[in-house]
Each structure stands twice: as structure tokens, then as C-alpha cells.
């Protein structure tokens, strides 16, 4: 799935510099990731573009044998566009959580809370039948059926997520890792319980219908049937977010996060304001989670509390870690596997959670660093390149 923005790094690449020439079975190693990151811009650009085009084309994928990846080959299968949409939503979740866990090293077990905040913000403000819009309409004498338009709901959702990220983080980020884990877990639960119990605001377990869709370019563009359109929307958002997150990673912010993750005390003594950067990681993660939740709710056109159970938080963490914590591509791969495989093998529905559990243990025990360990090597090469350029300039 990493074909969205760059080719899949060869996960069999040995990170040690020794075994570079030959790989398994004495075959020459491809070192795709290394070659890619060393390649000049005019090589990388087309690759990225082809990858993106392919990702946009996926809903129509019909060429055998590739079409076997579709999930709707049997009558009981799930709608392919819908599955693609969900995969991309969870990829957004994964890159957001990767900022918090993989980069800043903060164990957040309540990420579902931010996802729920995003979903509920768009529902509460955007649905004409939500208690919140009804109250606002009443108070200001607005017409029946008035609601905040979707486009305005997006900044509201993001602002609420940022605020809740800061509100949760400010008092708790001073706690040590394991304590942070349980406090965030509590936060995730509290959000769900609030959405269930505060009936006067959220309609409780009845949920809210009429969650708005994005403005439609044509009639029924974003309808329940046209899942491919939703997928394209989510994919575009994902690409934008990947681009922005990369920028953070490749700046002093990303370095500060890594330093904090590696050794917080040493980082502080080296002038890193650890608390500030941790809070930012939390807030940015929250905003990304909320974006995913908001897209999800908008496509469902309906939100209700049971969609935000705590197990999803664990699932999210599993995505990040199985793919390779600290590595955005790895996290997205994890999201892909965890979303796609169960949908593809629906025939074995009842066995899915069991198989998932076994796979989780097996992957972790056999490959604790995750499927695609991290971008360290790519970084190393980027560094080398910049350095070579500067050395040439100095001479």
C-alpha cells in the first residue's frame, strides 16, 4: 500500500552494511529503498506520480491476476471501494498515531477518543437533527433544518481535537510511560461513555443521523453507493497529510521527537523543550485522528457510541507497531494488513480474530522491530547526499 507515495522499501534489506552485495539465496540484493532515496528528483517524481495514479485507479482494478486482491469476488464479499476507503481512513489513523508512539515515544492507548471527537464534531454540528444544531437553531431563530456546512465542520473538528489533545496532554504528559498509557486509555473510555450517557447532547446510544457529506460536485457524488468517490476523497486527504507529516519529520521537530524518544533527560539537557514537543506530538496526533474520524462519520452518515470501543485503540496501536513503529510507511502497511486481510478473507469470518491474534504474537516474537523497521537508513542516505552536495560546494 505504500505505493501511494513511494515504492515499498524492500523489507528484506539487511540493515547492516556488511550484507549489502548479496541477499537471500545468494541473489543480488535489490535495495529498492536505498536506490529510491538516492535517486535524483526527476526519477523519484514520476515514481511517486505513477504510484499515486495507481492508487486512484485501484477501485476499478480488473486485470487478472491483480484483481484477486479485490474483496468483492464472492457474493458475500465486502464492497471493494468501501474497503479501500476504510483502509485509507486507518492509514490516516496510523500516521497520526505513529507521530505519537513511533516518533515521540508516547504510549497512547486512547487514540480512539480523538477519532470519536472528530466523528462526533462533524455529526453534532453538521447534522440538522443533532441536539446541538437544534439548540443553536432555536436560540438564534434559524430555520428548521439548519446545520453547519461540512466545510466549516472540518476546522471545528480539528480545533476540538487539538484542544482535547492539549487538555489531555498538559496534565498527563509529565507522567511516566506506563502511567500515560493507562490515563490515555481512560480518556478514550471517557469519551465513549460521555457520548453514550450525555443524551441531551449526543442522543446517547441512539446515535445521530444525517451527518453531512462534503459539498457535491454533481448530484449524488458522495452517496452511499459511490464508495469509490469517498475513497478518492480520503486518499487525497491521506496524501496531503503524508506530505505534511514528512515535513515535520524532516525538520527540527522530528529530530526533537526522536531525541525525546531515545533519551528524554539527555534531550532536555541539550536544550530540547521536551514537554512542548510532546504536547505538539499529542495535539498533531489528535488532529490526524480526528480527521480520520470525521471522514469516516461523514461517509457512514451516522455515528453512535459503540463504534468507538476501546479495542479499536489497541487495534490502532497494533497497526503502528506491527508495520514498524517510527516509520510512516511501516505504520501504513500495518494499517493496510490489519484492515485488508480480514475483509479479503471474509469466508473465514469466525476465525479472523483468532488468526489475527496468532499473527500478532508471531510477528512480534519473530520480528520485534516490525515488518518495515524504520526510516533510519533512508535518513542516513539523505544526510549523505546533502553532505556530499555541501562538500562539493565548499570545494
Amino acid at each position, binding site marked *: 500500500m505504500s505505493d501511494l507515495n513511494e515504492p515499498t522499501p524492500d523489507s528484506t534489506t539487511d540493515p547492516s552494511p556488511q550484507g549489502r552485495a548479496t541477499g537471500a539465496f545468494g541473489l543480488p540484493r535489490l535495495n529498492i529503498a536505498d536506490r529510491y532515496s538516492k535517486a535524483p528528483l526527476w526519477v523519484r517524481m514520476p515514481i511517486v506520480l505513477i504510484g499515486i495514479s495507481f492508487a486512484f485507479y485501484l477501485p476499478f482494478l480488473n486485470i487478472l491476476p491483480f484483481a484477486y486482491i479485490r474483496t468483492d469476488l464472492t457474493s458475500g464479499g465486502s464492497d471493494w471501494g468501501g474497503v479501500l476507503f476504510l483502509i485509507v481512513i486507518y492509514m490516516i489513523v496510523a500516521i497520526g498515531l505513529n507521530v505519537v508512539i513511533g516518533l515521540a515515544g508516547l504510549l497512547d492507548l486512547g487514540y480512539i477518543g480523538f477519532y470519536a471527537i472528530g466523528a462526533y464534531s462533524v455529526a453534532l454540528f453538521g447534522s440538522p437533527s443533532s441536539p446541538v444544531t437544534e439548540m443553536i437553531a432555536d436560540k438564534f431563530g434559524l430555520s428548521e433544518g439548519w446545520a453547519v456546512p461540512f466545510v466549516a465542520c472540518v476546522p471545528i473538528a480539528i480545533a476540538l481535537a487539538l484542544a482535547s489533545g492539549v487538555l489531555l496532554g498538559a496534565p498527563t504528559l509529565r507522567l*511516566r510511560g506506563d502511567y500515560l498509557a493507562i490515563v490515555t486509555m*481512560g480518556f478514550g473510555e471517557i469519551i465513549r461513555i460521555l457520548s453514550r450517557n450525555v443524551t441531551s447532547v449526543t442522543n446517547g446510544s441512539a446515535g445521530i443521523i444525517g451527518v453531512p457529506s462534503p459539498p457535491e460536485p454533481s448530484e449524488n457524488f458522495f452517496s452511499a453507493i459511490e464508495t469509490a468517490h469517498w475513497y478518492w476523497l480520503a486518499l487525497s486527504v491521506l496524501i496531503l497529510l503524508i506530505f505534511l507529516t514528512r515535513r515535520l519529520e524532516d525538520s527540527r521537530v522530528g529530530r526533537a521527537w526522536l531525541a525525546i524518544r531515545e533519551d528524554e533527560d539527555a534531550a532536555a539537557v541539550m536544550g530540547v523543550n521536551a514537554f512542548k514537543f510532546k504536547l505538539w506530538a499529542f495535539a498533531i496526533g489528535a488532529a490526524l485522528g480526528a480527521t480520520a474520524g470525521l471522514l469516516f462519520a461523514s461517509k457512514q452518515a451516522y455515528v453512535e457510541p459503540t463504534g468507538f470501543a476501546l479495542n479499536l485503540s489497541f487495534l490502532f496501536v*497494533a497497526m503502528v507497531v506491527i508495520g514498524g513503529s517510527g516509520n510512516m510507511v511501516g505504520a501504513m502497511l500495518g494499517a493496510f494488513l490489519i484492515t485488508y486481510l480480514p475483509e479479503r478473507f471474509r469466508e473465514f469470518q469466525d*476465525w479472523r*480474530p483468532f488468526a*489475527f*491474534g496468532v499473527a500478532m504474537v508471531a510477528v*512480534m516474537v519473530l520480528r520485534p522491530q516490525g515488518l518495515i523497521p524504520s526510516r533510519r537508513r533512508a535518513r542516513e542516505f539523505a544526510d549523505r547526499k546533502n553532505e556530499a552536495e555541501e562538500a562539493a560546494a565548499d570545494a
Partner: protein
Amino acid sequence: MDFNALIDGLGGHTLDGLTRGSIYALVALGYTMVYGVLRLINFAHSEVFMVGTWTVLGVYTVLGADSESAMPMVIFATLTALVAAALASASVALAVERIAYRPLRKKNAPPLIFLITAIGCSLVLVEIFGHVLKVFFGAPFGRAPVNVPSPIQTHTLLTIGDVRITNVQVFIILGAVLMMVALDLFVNRSRLGRGVRAVAQDPDTAALMGVNQDRVIMLVFILGGAMAGVAGLLFTINFDITKFDIGFIIGIKAFTAAVLGGIGNLRGALVGGLLLGIVEVYASAVFSSNWADVTAFIVLVLVLMFRPTGLLGESLGKARA
């Protein structure tokens, strides 16, 4: 909000809270001991508890014990269930440690990896009872809740004011406290217990002094597992029910209790468990049972805010920086 409801039934609510809290505390011990020695949240511990409840059901079924059974049978069935649950839970805990954690320890994996592995183990165990066993044996396995009728009949032992104390409540609270006292004595007095404390304080020095770290770790999983098994029995006696995913919510409560008291601290688990049980029952009375969990978490956050290492501080051996 209804404070009158709380004040009126204060005695009864407190007793309910202590009963519930005792079960939390027993499960919390497992989290706390493993954390104390390995600095690791063993998220699979909740399922160790779950296995205990199913074992109890199995023992009752095999012995044919039910609410009609005569007194000697009741005692025999309960004691057998106690031993069997403790053994089964301890074995599962040990299996998790051997299959999942030990290989990771050898690779010196970061804590996050242990966590995900634990979640995976949890899922496997849950699914074994929720699906795999059902495929082979059918009911009662599967995803539906199962009745576990305790042969012990509830009756009022004595009444103080308008507080009625039942035999079940006394059995649970006493049972839990006795188990914990025994464990505390074991860890603080025995030779093996000294090894546990030594590893908790300083694994490297302990290893230099000839303490076999792997043995200590196994011991800790066995002890914690056995406590969870006993908790499984007490739980079924109180609630007469089990389910394939029953461990999840109890596990979270117990872990909260452990953190509340100061994770790594045996007595902290007791204090945290009882306090959490009481807070939940009080909150149910004042607000409604819907708010019990929220209140419990808020109390936890408040405690951590002012005492970042829990009420009694962390220490299986002594406090660490």
C-alpha cells in the same frame, strides 16, 4: 445526583464496594508483580483471570455441583474449583511468559513490543473460548454469556443497623484478604520471595548474586496467575456468570487499581483495588451505574496528578528513582 441514596445505603454500598474491590485487588496483584519484576504491563493477565472463571464452570459441571447440592458437596466443589482455577490460571500465565515474553526478553525488545504481544496473546485466549473451543465442543463455549451457578447459597449472616452482611460477601472479602496476606508473607519472608524482591530492585546485581532471573520471573507469573484464578472463583460466586471476553473489563479495572495503589507494590494493589471498588459503587449510587467507570478514571487521574507513583508508591522491593 442523589447523595441521599448514597448516605442512606452507605454501609451496604461500602460492603458492595469492598466485595468488588477485593476481586479487583486479587487480579491487580498479577499486574503489579509482573510489573515490579519486568517493568512490563502484562495485558494478557485479564485473560488469565477469564480462564479461571471457565475452569470453575468446568469443575462444577464435572462434579455436578449446583445450588441444590448438600453442604459437604458445596465445600468440596468450591475448594476443588479454587485449586483448579488457580492451577489453570497459573499454567496459562506461565505459558504466555514462555511462548511470548521470554523470546522477546532474549531479544531485549522495547516495552511497546511486549505490549502488542500481550494484546495478541489476549486475543488468542479470548478467541479460544469464544470460537475455537466452540468449534470442537459446542456450548457452553462461544460468544454468549454463560451462567456459572455457584453451589454456595447466599444468605444473610448478620445485620448491623440496616446493613445486611451475606455469607458470600464475607467469603469473598476474607478469601481475597487471606490470599493477599499469604502472598505478602511469601514475598517478604521466604527465600524465594527474597529472590523476587532482589530482582525487582536491581536485576543485574541480583543476577550477580546468583539469583536465577528466569526462575524468579516464572515464579512471579505463576503466583500472579494463581491469584487471578482465585479471583475468577470469587467473581463467579458473586456474579454467577462468565463470558469469553469477561477479562477485558475486569482486567482494565484491576490494572487501574494497581496503578492507583502504586504499581509494583503488593499492598498498593490491595489499597487500590478496595478504593476503586468503593469509588465505583458510590458513584453508581450518586449518579448512576453509567458513570461508575468515568468516576473511577477521574479518581485515578487525580491521584496520579498529586502522587505520580500511586497512593503507596512503587515498590516490590523499594522505591526507585
